[in-house]
């Protein structure tokens, strides 16, 4: 048994992964059925909603980029919410799994955040004529991305696992509290000095398609976070084995 000194956080009783094939399926391509189905559903939903929705008056079919841009944004917020919940949980009960879930959600959230920004720019270029405007939503999402990056950088630069977990939880919690404040302040910043420019409001005809796409994205994101968590879990177990061996402990 790996040593488990009391100063370290209690490790979550990991699922029993006795055989190599079990471990392989946990993180290898074996456990991918959920993902395949989720991606297939996503492709199907995208195809259906693109074909089924009408062309818009001014911009032709450009509005359909919203079918990926908006769900990506929603996933970003959801991921951050997961970071918040598990950061607070970790501070309360000090379970390593809480920390690893929060970190996994942060990484996946950062990916969706980057995607949201890229898609916002791809939509913006034909719509506004430029690659970037300091629009309230886009700017806030950019700041959010930087908060994610800061969280991940902190984890990269702290070696002790207990300290990394505690600090990440604190930073995750405080960062999450700031998210609505950032959005509010940036929105004020944009609206107080000039009348609100025509925002990317959505034609109600698109709402249903949006929700379908969002649900499809959600299934994909759940898999991603779970898989990332399993990988972290396995990495931690390997590290604990290494530590135990280094201390000359008996396996």
């Amino acid at each position, binding site marked *: 048994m790996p040593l488990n000194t009391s100063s370290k956080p209690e490790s979550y009783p990991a699922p029993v992964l006795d055989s190599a094939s079990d471990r392989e399926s946990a*993180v290898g391509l074996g456990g991918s059925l959920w993902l395949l189905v989720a*991606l297939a559903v996503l492709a199907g939903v995208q195809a259906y909603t693109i074909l089924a929705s009408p062309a818009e008056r001014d911009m032709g079919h450009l509005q*359909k980029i919203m079918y990926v841009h908006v769900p990506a944004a929603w996933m970003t917020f959801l991921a951050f919410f997961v970071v918040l919940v598990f950061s607070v949980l970790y501070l309360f009960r000090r379970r390593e799994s809480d920390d690893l879930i929060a970190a996994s959600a942060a990484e996946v959230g950062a990916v969706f955040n980057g995607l949201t920004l890229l*898609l916002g720019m791809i939509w913006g270029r*034909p719509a506004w004529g430029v690659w970037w405007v300091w629009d309230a939503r886009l700017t806030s999402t950019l700041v959010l991305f930087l908060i994610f990056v800061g969280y991940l950088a902190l984890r990269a630069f702290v070696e002790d696992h207990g300290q990394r977990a505690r600090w990440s939880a604190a930073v995750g919690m405080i960062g999450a509290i700031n998210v609505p404040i950032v959005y509010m302040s940036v929105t004020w910043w944009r609206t107080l000095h000039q009348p609100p420019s025509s925002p990317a409001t959505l034609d109600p005809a698109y709402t249903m398609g949006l929700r379908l796409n969002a649900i499809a994205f959600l299934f994909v994101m759940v898999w991603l976070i779970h898989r990332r968590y399993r*990988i972290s879990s396995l990495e931690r177990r390997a590290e604990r084995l290494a530590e135990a*061996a280094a201390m000359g402990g008996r396996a």
Partner: protein
Amino acid sequence: MIESNQTFIVAAFAVTWVALLGYVLHLARRGARAVAEHERMLHESTGER
């Protein structure tokens, strides 16, 4: 106008799939490394007896 929009629409969906599949691939590689590392540690610690 609408023709050039099509490029951007296609680009948006392409970027989405590249991002998602790219990240899946990244996780697959990292997962394989984690499994290999774990196996190695397991054999090393049992081998020490």
